[in-house]
């Protein structure tokens, strides 16, 4: 077995056993990244990675540290990393070298991991395809002509194409789960507040949540153990104790009840995807799980609700990108108005500007009640639907994306693009933990299965996903790509 197909647990064992050093492992990944034509990375941090690798080898030699020591990973370029360009894939931050570490970056550094580089994404995490990046499109390793999904497209591709052992992602409306689904990997968006948002460039603060993107549910549990936890620098992070997410992975899931929301199986769902979801449900039944149809009536309003709240928040969050203290500044501004106008017009991409304008409009005097306030009310109703549902079932299951990965450049109408987020938005609006795990292939493209759990039920989600992965081999499939030769 080659190194880049190994799981974190396998790599960790290999490092400890001396099968390969961390420097060797890191060079292997860096080599693969440099030979890759998928454009998964915005920055590759070779020197830093090798420095960290040598430090990890020292730790391992002394028998110190945890399971993640020396594991090379790809970091979404939305997390601030000291001394490294942190761009959020925007021209606006192309010159921004962060002077500080995000809490997630800090925790991963403390655990002696090796950062290989920063991954491509939709600009400021706004998008479902990674096409809105200032640094060009990222390609799906299963078919170069296809989108990888987004916004954490670079991270999903890094894992799927064996360019890193795992990656970090952020999920505001599906940005971990959807690219995980379209690239055939495992992605977990934890409960809102589980992982600190400090140092994660904000898109929509009340929805943003970071999580792991991995090969397996077990790997996701290992990484979440390090990422999760209260942070006094983030007032919205939860004080809830962090369990060892790997502890109960193998528990039996017999007797669990799974709910299938009928709204997630409408006619919009691609039949190829639907059939894989139904097959996955059969697998669960074989594991002793009972299945029940449920209803999330307000989930049909998730798209308009999300596309009011997220733009409102981002219109304010992105105001700090004003050309004054950091980031892009237009040439020769003639006055303050000109500085603002041109810096922001030239520094932001189309989709970002569209959302800033939508949000600015929706928050304006006379419109606030009709848009923002109304959206907040529906958001509550959506949460209430889940509350009712979790009174009857343990886990909710459905598709992640209505289709498999589509052709690069094929969706140009923003509203059509927004509609593709239909199944993922509800979990963000309600703040619930949710996963995407590989559930097979439709016309040679990966299909993801979505699991949504109740608040703080990451352990159960991971346990359920792990049992499924013990039963199936979809997560072990890898795309046949040129990097494999490296």
């Amino acid at each position, binding site marked *: 077995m080659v190194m880049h197909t190994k799981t974190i647990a396998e790599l960790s064992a290999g490092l400890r056993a001396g099968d390969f050093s961390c420097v060797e492992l890191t060079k292997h990944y860096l080599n693969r990244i440099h030979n890759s034509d998928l454009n998964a990375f915005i920055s590759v941090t070779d020197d830093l990675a090798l420095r960290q690798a040598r430090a990890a080898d020292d730790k391992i030699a002394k028998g110190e540290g945890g399971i993640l020591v020396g594991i090379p990973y790809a970091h979404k370029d939305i997390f601030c990393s000291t001394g490294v360009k942190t761009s959020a894939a925007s021209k606006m931050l192309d010159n921004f070298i962060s*002077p500080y570490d995000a809490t997630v970056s800090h925790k991963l550094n403390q655990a002696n991991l090796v950062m290989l580089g920063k991954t491509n994404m939709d600009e400021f995490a706004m998008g479902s395809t990674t096409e809105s990046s200032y640094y060009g499109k990222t390609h799906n390793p299963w078919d170069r002509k296809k989108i990888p999904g987004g916004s954490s497209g670079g991270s999903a591709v890094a894992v799927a194409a064996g360019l890193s052992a795992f990656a970090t992602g952020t999920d505001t409306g599906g940005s971990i789960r959807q690219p995980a689904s379209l690239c055939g990997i495992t992605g977990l968006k934890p409960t809102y507040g589980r992982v600190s948002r400090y140092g994660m*460039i904000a898109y929509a603060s*009340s929805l943003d949540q970071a999580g792991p993107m991995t090969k397996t549910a077990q790997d996701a549990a290992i990484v979440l153990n390090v990422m999760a936890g209260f942070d006094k620098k983030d007032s919205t992070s939860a004080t809830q104790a962090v369990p060892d997410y790997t502890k109960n992975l193998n528990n039996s899931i017999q007797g669990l009840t799974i709910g299938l929301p009928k709204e997630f199986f409408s006619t919009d769902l691609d039949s190829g995807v639907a059939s894989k979801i139904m097959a996955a449900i059969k697998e669960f039944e074989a594991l002793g799980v009972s299945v029940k149809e449920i209803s999330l009536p307000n989930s049909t309003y998730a798209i308009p609700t999300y596309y009011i709240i997220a733009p409102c928040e981002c219109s304010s969050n992105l105001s700090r990108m004003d050309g004054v203290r950091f980031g892009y500044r237009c040439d020769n501004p003639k006055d303050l108005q000109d500085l603002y106008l041109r810096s922001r017009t030239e520094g932001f991409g189309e989709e970002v500007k569209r959302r800033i304008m939508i949000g600015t409009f929706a928050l304006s005097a006379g419109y*606030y009640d009709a848009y*923002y306030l109304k959206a907040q009310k529906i958001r509550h109703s959506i949460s209430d639907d889940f509350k009712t549902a979790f009174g009857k079932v343990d886990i909710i299951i459905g598709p992640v994306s209505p289709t498999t990965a589509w052709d690069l450049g094929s969706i140009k109408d923003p509203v059509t693009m927004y509609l593709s987020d239909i199944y993922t938005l509800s979990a963000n609006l309600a703040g619930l933990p949710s996963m995407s795990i590989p559930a097979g292939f439709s016309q040679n493209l990966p299909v993801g299965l979505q699991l949504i759990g109740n608040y703080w039920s990451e352990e159960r989600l991971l346990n359920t996903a792990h049992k499924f992965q013990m039963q199936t081999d979809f997560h072990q499939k890898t795309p046949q790509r040129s990097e494999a030769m490296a």
Partner: protein
Amino acid sequence: MKWETIIGLEIHAQLNTKSKIFSAAGTEFGQAQNSQACAVDLALPGVLPVLNEATVEKAIKFGLVIDAHINQRNVFDRKNYFYPDLPKGYQISQLDFPIIGRGKIEITVANTSKTIGITRAHLEEDAGKSIHDLYDDDTAIDLNRAGTPLLEIVSDPDMRSAKEAIAYAKKIHTLVQYLDISDGNMQQGSFRCDANISIRPIGQEKFGVRTELKNINSFKFLERAINLEIQRQQDILEDGGAVVQETRLFDALKNETRSMRSKEEANDYRYFPDPDLLPVEISAELIAKIKQNLPELPQQKKARFIAELGLSDYDANILTSQKGLADYFETMLKSNPDNAKLCANWVMGELSAALNKYQIEIQNTPISAQNLSLLVCRISDGTISGKIGKDIFQAMWAGEGSADEIIATKGLKQMSDSGQIEAIIDKIIAEHTQQVAQFKSGNEKILGFFVGQAMKATAGKANPKLLNELLRAKLS
């Protein structure tokens, strides 16, 4: 036509916390530019605000003493607008759910008491400073002040004259200092007033169109600015014109108010709840605890000064009108507990006069309370006379040392040896037989002449009481 003035004040009191309202950066005034601005204050990508709990406690203190409703659940909102010294592009403030609800305070103008309603008080962060005169073509930004905690106190439109407005502002100013929630330093901008002013014909119920005067940093200017604005509005209306709703700036140099921006140019602030901060939940226990530990307030202190120290109502009123003055006085009493009246006289007399003359805040007085107290001791124990005391005070003010040092170096110790004084008196009597005769024939006033001669001969050091007694004895 007779006009009635309607005034409401918005006061921004900077809370005297060590660190900022949403970051750990320091708040000390006058530090090197941008040296007190951390990643959060600079609004770098990804940073988040964390509420400084001390600001909540200080706001509650204020709410309790104005009999206000404390909103146990209050919410921070974002007030969005672009300005270079507002790093985030929004100010974190409180709109719909402020920490302090409706309250009231009583003011006294010309011996008449009046209750002024307080609409609300809310927590918010200050902006940084734009410095336009540092470079020729560019504006410099200093973010040291960005994120400094403010309590914005909004009054009802209850005041009917500049005098009432000043009385209200001074009352709030005294309160925040007594509560130790703000240093109230107006020169440094720790206490700023905006005034909303309108006028209406007496008898009319409907308010006139109001203007807002911004950024006034002294009570003197506040009174001047309000009166100027009342006159301006009156002139417009009496000429048949209409007052325009706008924000106006007071220019102390030109002694005028001028338009800053009209209602049409006003920003749409697009307020919405800040998703980075959870609503603030205040427990009843916390409120009770703060209530128990409230410091002595001016009214209580005044009553105590009268009852326990025997001060007059007038003296007690003046001494408690400023926390600094009361603190100074009480520090003096510690080493001089039996001389309350004498201490009070010195604080309200020489000290206040000197502070006034040189425009110095009592916090910055060159004579500490301990030192002035020592001077008062030397008077009460007879070492020096009150008159010499005033000279020593001037020397102390000039930095020549403590009372004892000055007495020693200048040889100002009072002459209380009766033998010594008698010898001097004998000499004077011998030299002025004519005046002695006048005294003996009943001219009591001539005694002052002998006192003057004796003081001259002793360089003012003769104990006046003893001198008087001895003179009378020798002359009769």
